[in-house]
């Protein structure tokens, strides 16, 4: 049985639960294990890149919305210094988001060589 990020089984995400005031935003958010499952399905269907994306997504499920928006902003061209991007990579590493950390480090390197750092 699929569970939401909160741990609530999806079958319990019902109107009755909502009426009783039992549903929180985390009850309608995807669980990282579910994303890992979907990543395996994508792999089995000849799309390892979609799988990699879903695994990066699994790592991001724990990050607050605002932090995700902020990291996205920092990755846009000319927004960050090299140190800034490295710090984000370290932060991501520290919360177990190592695939995302690798992506950000790669970006830092590419931005440096193509003149896209602040």
């Amino acid at each position, binding site marked *: 049985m*699929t*569970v*939401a*990020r909160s741990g609530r089984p*999806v079958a319990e*995400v*019902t*109107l009755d639960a*909502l*009426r009783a005031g039992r*549903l929180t*935003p985390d*009850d*309608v*958010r*995807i*669980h990282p294990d*579910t*994303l890992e*499952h*979907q990543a395996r*399905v*994508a792999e089995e*269907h*000849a*799309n*390892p*890149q*979609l*799988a*990699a*994306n*879903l695994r*990066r*997504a*699994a*790592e*991001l*499920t724990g*990050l607050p*919305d605002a932090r*995700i*928006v902020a*990291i*996205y*902003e920092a*990755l*846009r*061209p000319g927004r960050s210094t090299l140190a800034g991007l490295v710090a984000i990579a370290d932060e991501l590493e520290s919360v177990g988001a190592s695939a*995302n950390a690798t*992506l*950000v480090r*790669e*970006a830092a390197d*590419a*931005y440096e060589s*193509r003149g*896209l750092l602040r």
Partner: protein
Amino acid sequence: MTRPIGRFRFMDEQRVNLDGFAVPDVDLGLVAFDSPNDPEPSLVIADGIVVQMDSRERADFDLLDRFIADHGLDLVGAEEAMATDDLDFARMIVDPGVPRSEVVRLAAGMTPAKLARCLARLRPAELTIALTKCRARRTPSNQAHVTNRSDDPLLLAADAATAAAFGFREIETTVPVLGDAPSNAIAVSIGAAVASPGILVQCSVEEALELEMGMRGLVSYAETVSLYGTEQIFIDGDDTPWSKAFLTSAYASRGIKMRVTSGGGSEALMGSAEGRSMFYLEARCVALARAIGSQGVQNGGIDAASVAGAVPSGVRAMMAENLMVMLRNLESCTGNDALMSESHVRRTSRTHPIFIGGTDFITSGFGSIQRYDNMFGPSQWNAEDIDDWLVMQRDWGVDGGLRPAAEPEVARLRERATAAVRDVYQVLGLADFSDEWRDQAIDAAGSKDVPAADLMTPLSASRLIRDGQVTMLDVIAALDETGYEIEAERLLAMLRARVIGDYLQTSAIFTEDMQVLSLVTDPNDYAGPGTGYQPTPDRQVEMDGIRQQRSVDDLRSEQASFASSRLASAGPADVQHDPRDVVIGVSPATGRAIWRTLCGLTVDEALAELLAGLEEEGCRGRIVRINDTIDLGLIGLTAARLAGSGIGIGLQAKGTALIHRRDLTPLANLELYSVAPTLDRAAYRQLGVNAGRHAKGSTPEPLRNPYSDEAIEARYHTTVVSLVAIERQCCAPGLPPETLALEEDGR
């Protein structure tokens, strides 16, 4: 300057000449396929790292090269893929004996330049069959735009319900005023849920705001994540492959479906195509889409469709872009959105092979609203084309994703959608709407019909939504509280779908019973005739049942509504000898089952004019029903043989008429009035006059058939088939002619 001759003045005035056409210009990127500056395909791998791709060394890679080389290619299969001959691969794509999976496997190892070169070899008919074979999802679908100039929440909801009623499974909205976005997302979501479960909704705005709305559950997919084929334009778009890759993961981290958008010609439009062909640059976009892990791509020109369309083979290139997405094993939303021509012929031509081939979303999207209300700009297909689309589906027996919808049902849905939004906005304290506004929105064909709409309402509602951190759960609770339990349940099901995550897979849509159809659950299994997607019998009946179709019974009851008793039988008809006697022979159904001619006059009225015309010439008209034939020539000849003058008029109840003489063969006649729908009182009067003149032995000037450039046959031939069937039922071999009297007024 001399004036062009009339033929060219006339041609210059045609709508297609409002379109712009460009002389190919390699430097400006105004070339569809195979620019001389496109690189030679190449791939060199050393120690598991791509060190050269498409003739460029790693040290010289730009951002796109690097991301594609490091993330986008199947390096294990690359050697085999790159060594495959271009034409051999092109043939594999088309060959029904080669499975899609094999084509997809090889494409994964091909660089952008290699894949571009292979696909440039395919001709249009081959592209069509390739779409049928290579799209990821077996079942085709379609997407609608629902927007309006005022961001009117009530009209958005009514139009979203309407779009869903017509079968669209995805609805894309956007805003003229950025601040209105959250209100639009909620209004469209509610409207869609009124009409159907499982409608995916997105609100296309600036990337960060779109993500925020997605996180709050206000939209269920994202699409306007733009990719470009050159580094400069990519950066001008304020993104990099890495920021886009992160954004892609961000959406997935909240269980939100996402695809990217690209399209040939956009780089040329923005002035930085690096001298490459549109198709090669698009090949880079598509490779990048796969590399960042997007499940799908919307392409096929898109906003630059008219740029791609301006160069030779540009329309073919847009279709080949769509196929390229499928070969990269991604969801293909095949454009046909931005209007690329003023010519109806040309825009239909652009879409038609894609419509026939079938794709994940044939248009992305269809402007289901008025052209003036489309805040993406007018679409290739718009509200005025919905019936055309439905008829095209029926003509070809092809599933274009839409279904007919009955007016009373759409009216009911619009009423409920506006009521639901009104109640939800009131309960959430977002806005109050007047009855007048609501009534106008229900009835409106477009926002011009809703003068009561207040432009500040969506803006203030949106501010309250953002400030109050309103989520879709709040909207659902408000729906439930105000008596819209069905819609509340439908929107909650969309949130559950995010938790389950099956719709993150390639090409996912929901059926009306919330089953996911995707590459995983509904894989395309086309392998030649008799395989692949075929509409179920129920679906075929649904598509074929357009509201305009008529049966013989429909025509019979319509005729019955014009029934009159002015024509009464007055016994058997005999041969007379008065030289002023002219017989008007009428067809078997006249006065029995057919009472109205195709031009709208009743048969009585046409007969009255004929009689009056004869009288003007001093002749006496006699009406005789010829009961044993429906052939007009024979009816006229039989009438002539009964007439003292030897002149007869033949009149079918549907209005077609001729003048006959007793010594002629049935198919020869003196004058024929063949285009019944264009006749009128004056024409029948003149026909009577001319028949009288023939009776007197003179040669009248024939009446010239009225001119019409309308598709007369298209309008009336189906009716004629039914009317002829009715005539045949009234016809009895051997039944003698009978005299009819036309009473002055028998109604």
